[in-house]
């Protein structure tokens, strides 16, 4: 099925329809609808607590939703079990805290998914892993454990780990927020390359420069809602909503 869908140009890779979610009394996602086309780069920005990370995490069901629908290439996201695992394997996810497996070498981190989930042989998985680690610039660190790498190197290795699954789309949940300033660009550069290579991406970030340069569309969230969306130049230069204007003013201040 998914192969047939992949052929259809018009089916969005990721689609959210009227998604709602509560944490107890807190309404974290309010009737969120979003559609991401193949090859599109969508950057989600907004003040902290606006629900943007939660939104990102619902797409591969690290967070469940109360109501609404999430479709991956037109197919509803499975509830749990093997079907959900298979769907997750087709979406790459990059976390704020890198989350590399602490007891494994960087190379083993990257080959684990392909070997366990895709059933690849060790040699095949390692060949591709080394190619990817080279592409993100950490090939020399392949045999070290994560704790021996800098934050920027860890995050690039984590991106390679996701890419090794040959995902249909990549989700980035504040990928540079835990990094020292001098390491932010090395990670963003990798993401820019990915975007230029045609990867479908959803990026939750505070890096406005990246959003302006790379995004096909900027989505501004506040209080669990999508308040405004548009192409970067229009959004940053002429925000329509007061909330967006306030937010952009508040980060421009320094």
């Amino acid at each position, binding site marked *: 099925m998914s192969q047939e869908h992949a052929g259809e140009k018009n089916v969005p890779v990721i689609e959210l329809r009227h998604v709602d979610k509560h944490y107890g009394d807190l309404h974290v996602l309010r009737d969120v609808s979003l559609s991401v086309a193949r090859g599109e780069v969508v950057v989600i920005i907004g003040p902290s607590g606006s629900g943007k990370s939660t939104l990102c995490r619902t797409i*591969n069901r*690290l967070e469940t939703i109360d109501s609404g629908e999430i479709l991956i290439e037109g197919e509803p996201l499975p509830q749990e079990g*093997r079907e959900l*695992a*298979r*769907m*997750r*394997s*087709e*979406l*790459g*996810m990059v*976390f704020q*805290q*890198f*989350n*590399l*497996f*602490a*007891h494994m070498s960087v190379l083993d981190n990257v080959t*684990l*998914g392909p070997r*366990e*989930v895709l059933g690849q042989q060790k040699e095949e998985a390692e060949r591709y892993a080394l190619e990817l680690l080279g592409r993100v610039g950490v090939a020399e660190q392949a045999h070290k*454990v*994560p*704790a*021996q790498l800098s934050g920027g190197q860890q995050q690039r290795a*984590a991106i390679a*780990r*996701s890419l090794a*699954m040959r995902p249909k789309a990549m989700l980035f949940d504040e990928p540079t927020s835990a990094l020292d300033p001098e390491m932010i660009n090395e990670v963003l550069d990798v993401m820019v390359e990915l975007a230029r290579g045609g990867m479908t991406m959803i990026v939750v970030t505070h890096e406005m420069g990246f959003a302006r340069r790379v995004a096909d569309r900027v989505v501004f969230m506040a209080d669990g809602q999508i308040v405004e969306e548009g192409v970067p130049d229009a959004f940053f230069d002429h925000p329509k909503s007061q909330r967006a204007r306030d937010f952009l003013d508040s980060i421009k201040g320094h």
Partner: protein
Amino acid sequence: MGLSELLGTYGDKYLQGLLATWSMTVVSFVFVMALAVVVTVARVSPYRPLRVAGDLYVQVFRNIPGVALLIIIAYALPELRIVLDWRTCVIVTTILLGSAFGSENFMSGINTIGVGQIEAARSLGLTFTQIIRKIVVPQALRTTVLPMTNLLIAVMLTTALGSQVPLNPQELTGVVSYVNTRATGGILVFLVSALCYVGTGFVISFVGNRIDRRVRILR
């Protein structure tokens, strides 16, 4: 009775006792670790009844005195037509007690694994079983070498319960009772067994420390 006379007369008995203690310790510990893994997997599983059963197991066996449990197994189970030989009774008691503590060690080891790593594994598409096998168990094992070393020593000491039932051959503590009913060796009779325990414990902790330094996970 002096030390040389004591060892001259009962040396073989002590040696047999030491070997009996060692063998019961090894057999018990293998099952302690295996059962601790099983119980711990149940306690972190997505199925509530399994989690509850695992927690209950730990609460029950962590809170029963060893002697009481041995009495139940040796003297109450035969009422249910379950008759185990004496050595097996001691070993089963030790396994039940030890695995409860072992599971607690594993749980604290698992708690050092950030939830982020589990989420990363899930988002790669790994199933629960794969995550347990590839991420959780290896890290839990490697971060709990020192507490498990302590547990191994505790398991050895627990096999002294063997002195409460007629074992043949007797283990180290049983040998003390045996000798004391036949000779007046005083404190010395205890001391020989005590040195065997302490010496073994010393070797265990030395090896445990070496293993810990080799496998410890950098964070």
